[in-house]
Each structure stands twice: as C-alpha cells, then as structure tokens.
C-alpha cells in the first residue's frame, strides 16, 4: 500500500486537487491536507488498528489458506519475488504448520481485542522464509558457502537432471538486481515532485503571491528541463504487485525457480530433513513484543 502511494497509483499527495470547486481549502484545513512526508508502515498499521477499534468493527472474515494474506500464499509470492526455488515452499508450509501460525483464529483480526496478537502478515511471511533459509543453510557466513561449493561441483560434472540450487550464484544475481533497483529508487526519491498546479495558500491575500511563485517555478522547471538533454521518461508504469521479476525463459540461468534442493537434504525415517543439524540464533536477547 505504501509503495503504491509513493508510486502515485493511489492519491495521497495533493489530494485536494481532485476536490470539487465548492470544497475550497483554507486556513487550518491546510494543515490536514498538506502532505510533507510519506506514510510509514508502522504509522499506517497502528492507525488501522485504532480506526478498526474506533469504528467498533466486528471480527473480520476468517483468513484461510486460500486467502492472499495467509502465510502460505504470501510465502509463495515472496519466494517468487526473491528468485528462490519453488521447492522452498514445501518447507515454509511445514514451518507454518509446525508453529501453528496458519490457524484462522491466530491470523484473523478482531478489532479492539487486546488479547489476540495483531499479526503483520507480510513481516510474518518474510520471517518464515528467513527461518527456513536458516534451517536449511544455517547462514553463519560459512556453511552456506560450503554447501554452495558442493552444489557447484555437482552441477559442473552433471549437466543433465536439472540444476542444484547454488546459494552463491543466487546471491550474486539477486544482489546485483537489488543494487540496480535500489539505485533507481534512490534517484526516483530525489526526483519526487511534491507541489502541484493548484498550490495551497492560507488566505486570499496570499493567493496572488503564491500563484506568482508557482509561475516562476514552472518557468524555471521548463528552462532547466530543456537543458536536461534526454527526453522525459514515459508515463509511469502500471501498478504491479512485484518489484522484481524473473523469467525461466532466460537462458543465462538467472532464474532459480526450478532449481533443486537435493544437495542439501537427506532422508530420515521417510521424511526429508536438512543435512544441516544446527540452528544459529544470532540475537543477543529474545524479542519482548507481544
């Protein structure tokens, strides 16, 4: 939601532009509608809870495993976006089941009820993926590279039968893409235009001054815009659920969906488990938040 707002798909900045003529803003109203910052996740989340309680809403519809907000679904989405093997989805579902966070009672929002946990669905799903990666790869900055080297060896010597997932290769691919995307995002941030054609003003007296200033700004923008060289970019792209996307049709092997986890798994009593027996808890103390 925050991303869509920032990308301009949902009106937020300068919303008053779309108000009808009779809804003229003046005086203290300005403070409400004049946006000087983008909303932050925590703030929106807390406000959402407050609003739900304020409106005295009843228990929301149950969240089942076919709902988008269910960890099984979200994990699949995030695994795809992170370019991780499909096989990992089995593991995320196993973890979800094991710690009972897939239950409807746990997940469904009951406004105003202090005893139920308030679940941040996206954070939860991401956490499950991290836990799965730690279970399988340990992630102590040593073991995962070891496993990766084994997989690399096997892939070199065995061309048929599909690739084993190589952590190192995956990391390189995703880091590159992330860096490029981050750089682009940073530049976009620097290029946000916050003001609009219909500027706000406190009173009728200030109106002409404000409009004059607006005119100057537009003139200067045109003048330097011409000197910017390259043609202005195309209209903003359509909203998309995914920020990163990967295609299995790419022959450069940069898509890891179909890769296998065989190299790091073993069978024990009919069940597949990780070869890695340890889990590295790298926090100083446990989280106290309820």
């Amino acid at each position, binding site marked *: 939601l925050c991303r869509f707002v920032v990308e301009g798909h949902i009106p937020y900045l300068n919303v008053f532009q779309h108000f009808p003529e009779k809804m003229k803003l003046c005086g203290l109203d300005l403070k409400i509608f004049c946006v*000087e*910052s*983008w909303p*932050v996740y925590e703030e929106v989340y807390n406000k959402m809870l407050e609003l739900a309680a304020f409106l005295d809403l009843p228990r929301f519809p149950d969240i089942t495993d076919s709902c988008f907000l269910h960890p099984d679904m979200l994990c699949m989405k995030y695994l795809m976006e992170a370019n991780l093997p499909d096989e990992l989805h089995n593991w995320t579902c196993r973890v979800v089941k094991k710690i009972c966070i897939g239950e409807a009672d746990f997940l469904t929002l009951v406004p105003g009820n202090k005893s139920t946990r308030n679940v941040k669905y996206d954070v939860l799903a991401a956490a499950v993926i991290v836990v799965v990666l730690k279970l399988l790869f340990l992630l102590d900055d040593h073991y995962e590279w070891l496993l990766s080297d084994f997989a690399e060896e096997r892939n070199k010597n065995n061309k048929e039968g599909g690739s084993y997932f190589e952590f190192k290769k995956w990391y390189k691919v995703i880091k590159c893409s992330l860096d490029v995307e981050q750089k682009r995002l940073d530049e976009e941030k620097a290029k946000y*235009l916050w003001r609009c054609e219909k500027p706000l003003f406190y009173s009728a007296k200030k109106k002409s001054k404000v409009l004059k*200033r607006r005119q*100057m700004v537009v003139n200067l*923008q045109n003048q*330097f815009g011409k000197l910017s060289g390259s043609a202005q970019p195309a209209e903003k792209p359509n909203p998309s659920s995914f920020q990163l996307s990967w295609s299995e049709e790419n022959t450069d092997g940069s898509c890891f969906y179909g890769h296998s986890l065989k190299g790091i798994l073993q069978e024990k009593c009919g069940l597949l488990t990780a070869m890695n027996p340890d889990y590295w808890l790298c926090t100083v103390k446990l989280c106290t938040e309820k």
Partner: protein
Amino acid sequence: SSHEHKLTFKKSKEVCLSYIQDAMLQKQWKRAAEFLTFYIESLEKDFSTEYMGPSEMIWRIGTEILCHHSHSSMKEFNSFIEQMKTLGVKRYLKVCLEHAFHLLCNGLIDEAYQNLSLAESWRFGEQTAIQDKEMKLIQAYRGLLDYYSWSKQKTILLEHGQDGFEDLSVEQEMHSCFRKAAVNLREIIKIPGVWDLFVKCYVDLLEFYGDHNEARQVLNEYAYNSKFPANPNAHVYLYQFLKRHGESKKSLISALKILHDIVPSHELMIDFNMMLQKSKKRKKRRLGLEVIFAALDYAGWKENVKAWSCLARQVKQIVNSEKHLDWIKQEWNSRKDWWPAFHFSRYLAKRNWQDNESLSCEKALVAGILLGKDCKYFKYVSHQGCKARVKRFRILKKFVNKHNPAYLRISG
C-alpha cells in the same frame, strides 16, 4: 516508529541537492540540470516548520549550470537572472553585481553598464542601507566602465587630432565620462581594501587632467595608510608615478623600500639595487647589497643575468676598494650552507656555460670571491672560458686570483 527513515519534503530535497552537487563536481551539466528541475519546487511555500533557504542555492547552481552547459545561451542566462533578482530582496544587489560581472566576462559591456545603472537606482527601505557595501561596489564598477568609455573617446580624439579633425561632441562626452568615473572611483578607493585596477584608472584620469597633487596623494594613501592591507602593487604604482614625474632618487628609493620588505623577489629589486649601489650614502649601498642577495635567494632569479651582474658589480667594487668586506661576510653567513648547492654546483656550471656565457661569467666572479678560486663553479667556468679564448674570462681569472685574500677574509 523510526522517523529517520521517514521521507519528508525536506529530506527529499536534500537528497536531490546532493545529486546535483555530485553531477556538478563531475561536470555532468545535463544531469545537474535534470535534478535541478526537481529541486526548484522547493521555492514554493514550505508548510513545514523548518526553513530551507533554497533560493540562494538555486541561484548559484543555476548560474553554474548555465555557464557551462553547451546549449545555454546568453539570452537564457539573462532571463534566469532576472527571475533570481525577484527571489530575495536581501540578495538583490549581489545578484545584480554578479550578473554584471558575467556580462563583462562575455564582452557585453553596454549591457553590463545598463545593469549597473539600473541597480544603482534601486531603493528598498532599510535594505538599501543594509546592502551599502554592494551598492558601493556597483557604483565603483560603473565608474570603471565610465573610465573605459573615457579611454575610448580619448583615443578617438587623439586620432582625430592627428588627422586635423576637431570633434567637440566627443570631447564633451569624454569630459562627462571623466566626471562620472572620477566621482565613483574616488569613493571606492577610500574604503580600505585592494583596489588596484580602480586606483590605476583613477590616477590615469588625474594625470591626464594635470592634477598631479591629487594623484600623488591617492597613491600615498593607497601605499602607506595602515588601514589598507599590505599590497606590493600599491608601492609599485607609487614608484612608477614618481619615476614618470622625475622625482628624486631619494623618494624613489623610499618608495621601493617597503616593496623590498614585502616582496624581496620582486622584479623591481634590480632597479632598486642599481639606485642603491650608486648612492653616496654608505647605508644605502649596504642596503643595496642586502637587496640583491635577497632577490637571488629565489629560484626565479637563478638564471637572471642582470641580477647576477648587479651582484657581481657590487662585489667587485667592494673587493677593489678593500673596504666593507664585512658586508659580504654578513650576507654570506646565512647563505654559505645552501647557496653553493643552489647556485654553484658543478652541474650548474656546465649548464650555465652551455646556455649563457654571460651568466656564467657573472656567476663565476661571485663564486670565485665567495667560495675561492678552487671552487667547482669558478674552476670549471674559467677553464672553459679561457680554453675558448674569450677575453673576459681571462680578466675574470686574473681578478679572482688576485683577490683570493679577500675570499680568505670572508670565509675565515
């Protein structure tokens, strides 16, 4: 909630500004222009409580970009600056002044003059008094341009005079430019500061109209008023003026004295030394020796034949008279550790001999007296010179050999 990560308007513009700065540092003018386009809206009323002060930033950045960007024109620049002038009353005169500079740098003298005149007539309540300094500068530069017009007309007049034409209107205009220029130039040079160009022009005007007294007063003020920063040029101008008007050696020498103190390596030190050498007063001759030694301490003088010939002449004169060898000893005391390697190495002997015989001859004399006839420099040069049968080297050799005792006295 972590407010540091909150993207506010202020932060967004700060980030934008850093992109502009990076682009400018790398001379990527198109990219800088692109980001400036997004920065410009920070001029609009900011409803947050923090004041950003973007207008000065935009003025300076915009000016830089327009100066360097390949596609920008003078017309665009002017239109941009006119908008900048309306942005901040507190900065108005400064923007006008810098605009005028820019026009001058692009050879648009008339436009610059118009701008300055317009700025001069600006009044804005108490701002006028607050921006007094800028106003004085504006008037001073306008005065300078008046001088420039005067100078052009003077040239025309002189040409016509030669051709036998009389041009009353040109003459009248010339005098009017003079009056306008004189008023403003006189005002600015009253303020302590460095006004070299203005002083020169003002003095030029005064001399032309025969007001030598005023000219001398102006130059004296400029050179000797302690409120003004130490400025070697002030003394040079005074000296040149006095010389032009045939003043006595005494005043010429006193004019150069301070110059020697401030800039011992100045090119006028040769003239100074020559005047001092010839003086009847012992103190002056002593000073002359000090002056020429001090000048030759500087690398820029190493291969200057005139400087070495001055030193050689004075050394010869002292050695011949057998009086005041202690002067040479005093001067040599602080130099004997480093001058031999600096001036009199064997390498330099070879090079000087190859490049410039006269130079090597003068230097050899000095080396022979200061370091004795057995020193590398003298031996090499005199040997080469005598081998080549050049007369003056034979004379040199004889002289140094004859006066070896002098060397012994200096070194001992």
